[in-house]
């Protein structure tokens, strides 16, 4: 039950590399905050600074209103779930979970009841006597979670905990983590590079790039109103189509070598974004009209089951369009694509939303 506040946090490594370049985040109590970004963006460094495993070069980190810069990981009252689980290989599942409590001199009967209660929640009761090497990946993951939960800490920290699981298990564990976190009501920081994981888990989504925050917000807000071209391209799969906007002498704007955009366009807009699902395919049966209409040639069709992605091209530029269900379109066909003005995202030449 705690808030976590990061105030202009920086991390400069000994070699002069600046991994985190001034990050401020206020995580409310009981929230699940997901840090997402490509590898090397500083998200893991930030998490490790919250954990106390990395020193803070400047700025402050507070847990529950108390600055923890100088406090070691042991005394921050945090628990961490690691990417490779980091279970103690020579200890049984029971001992793995009990170890942190023993080090804190928790009375034996209490350790026992807490470990057993946690094992019950995570359905690990049958495995308490096993060693980590006798467990499957998913079971190890649960034990790692159990080790965090049993401590009943103020904050949970997750460092890409699902990246070693297969896709199906990852989907299951995602739901489980979300439910657990909500039921326990423990403030959590979760690092991932998987935008799907980020979208589905987060109460609060923090998109990072090159040591800086690109955007903070609720997942759907970030999705619907990306603050920059980076966020637009990172969140969503397939990513948003980003097209260079050309200004004609008469003041109108065109994309892709000549297609005009009708309606008023923000003054400094230099890039226009269109999500694949917002592009409508115009057919003679159901003609679509919008601010933008593009005659394109289909280059490839990717059916993924409940939807298909059409990779289209016009004048050497590419655009991806999502169509529901099975698509009758063949590579080589020409199509008319339309999109409403409210579906277009505009960014200035630096990539900021306008």
């Amino acid at each position, binding site marked *: 039950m705690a808030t976590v506040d990061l105030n202009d946090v920086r991390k400069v490594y000994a070699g002069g590399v600046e991994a985190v370049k001034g990050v401020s985040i206020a995580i409310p109590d009981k929230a699940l905050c997901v840090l997402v970004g490509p590898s090397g963006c500083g998200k893991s460094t930030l998490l490790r600074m919250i954990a106390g495993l990395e020193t803070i070069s400047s700025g402050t980190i507070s847990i529950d209103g108390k600055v923890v810069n100088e406090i070691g990981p042991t005394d921050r009252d945090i628990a961490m779930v690691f990417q490779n689980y980091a279970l*103690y290989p*020579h200890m049984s599942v029971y001992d793995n979970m009990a170890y942190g409590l023993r080090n804190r001199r928790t009375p034996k009967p209490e350790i026992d009841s807490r470990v057993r209660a946690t094992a019950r929640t995570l359905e690990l009761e049958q495995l308490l006597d096993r060693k980590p090497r006798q467990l499957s990946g998913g079971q190890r993951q649960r034990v790692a979670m159990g*080790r965090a939960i049993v401590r009943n800490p103020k904050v949970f920290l997750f460092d890409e905990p699902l990246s070693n699981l297969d896709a199906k298990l990852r989907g299951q564990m995602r739901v489980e983590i979300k439910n657990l976190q909500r039921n326990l009501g423990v403030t959590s920081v979760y690092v991932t590079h998987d935008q799907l994981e980020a979208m589905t888990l987060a109460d609060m989504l923090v998109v990072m790039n090159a040591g800086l925050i690109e955007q903070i917000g609720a997942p759907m807000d970030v999705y619907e109103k990306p603050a920059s071209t980076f966020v637009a391209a990172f969140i969503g799969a397939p990513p948003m189509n980003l097209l260079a906007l050309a200004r004609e002498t008469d003041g109108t704007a065109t994309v892709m070598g000549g297609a005009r955009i009708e309606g008023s366009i923000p003054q400094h807009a230099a890039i226009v974004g269109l999500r694949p699902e917002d592009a409508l395919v115009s057919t003679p049966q159901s003609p679509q009209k919008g601010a933008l209409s593009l005659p394109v040639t289909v280059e490839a069709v990717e059916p993924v089951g409940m939807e298909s992605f059409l990779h289209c091209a016009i004048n050497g530029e590419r655009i991806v369009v999502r169509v529901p269900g099975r698509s009758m379109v063949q590579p080589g066909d020409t199509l008319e694509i339309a999109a409403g003005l409210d579906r277009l995202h505009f960014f200035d030449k630096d990539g900021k939303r306008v």
Partner: protein
Amino acid sequence: MADLKAPASGHDKLMIGQSATGIYVAHAILILGILIVAFPIYYTFVASTHTLQTILRPPLPLLPGPEFWNNYSQALSGGVNRIGGVGVDTLLVNTTVMALGIAIGKIVISILSAYAIVFFRFPLRMTFFWIIFITLMLPVEVRILPTYKVMVDLGLIDTYAGLIVPLIASATATLLFRQFFMTIPGELVEAARVDGAGPWRFFFDILLPLSRTNIAALFVILFIYGWTQYLWPLLVTNSNSMNTIVIALRKMISFADADTQWHLVMVTAMLAIVPPILVVVAMQRWFVKGLVESEK
């Protein structure tokens, strides 16, 4: 279910690409090798069960003689006049103390220094590492005179400390532990820190149990190293009662051939082999695991 099983045949045990002839050849070579290695030990044993007269009248029989109890009880209790009336039991105790001291001492010192070098960041860390590494190039024989002088000045001649301490530092073992510690994932160290384990707790609760097999393997090797030390014990012990069994053996045969109590020499040699064998047998499971294991 049993009747559904495929009939057992010798071919079940063959590895792919192996022929029956190959197996016979491999076994023949193995058996030959064992014979070559084991025969001198067997012959020593045979000699230890005959009287001196039989031994001195070649050829020595290939089968054990009737003097087993006589020879062994004489060596164990009676003592041998040639080496100052010290019984084999005293020699065995001396050697055991020295070998254990060297093996345990080396392991304790090297595991601690490797722990410091791998898991702590302190000034001149790499310098210390290289200094340890350089000592690899200075074997005992090279520094034996200054070391002897130091032992004399410290009054450690004819003491267990004098036997053990100069041999106790081990760059090899330090390097071995360092290599092993470097394979321990950083996450494990961090998990322990988050779990509230300080440096000592991490060492005793996690690092030591994980190093178990390495320690066992090293213990066997170092125990035998200590057991078979020759030059240093020869220098640092004057009194016969502080001799190790290897030194005593040499002293027993340093006289004219006719005077040497060959049957007792052979008994002593046999007894000298027993403790290292016991150590190897006792540690065998862990020893092999330590040499081949890579699972973590």
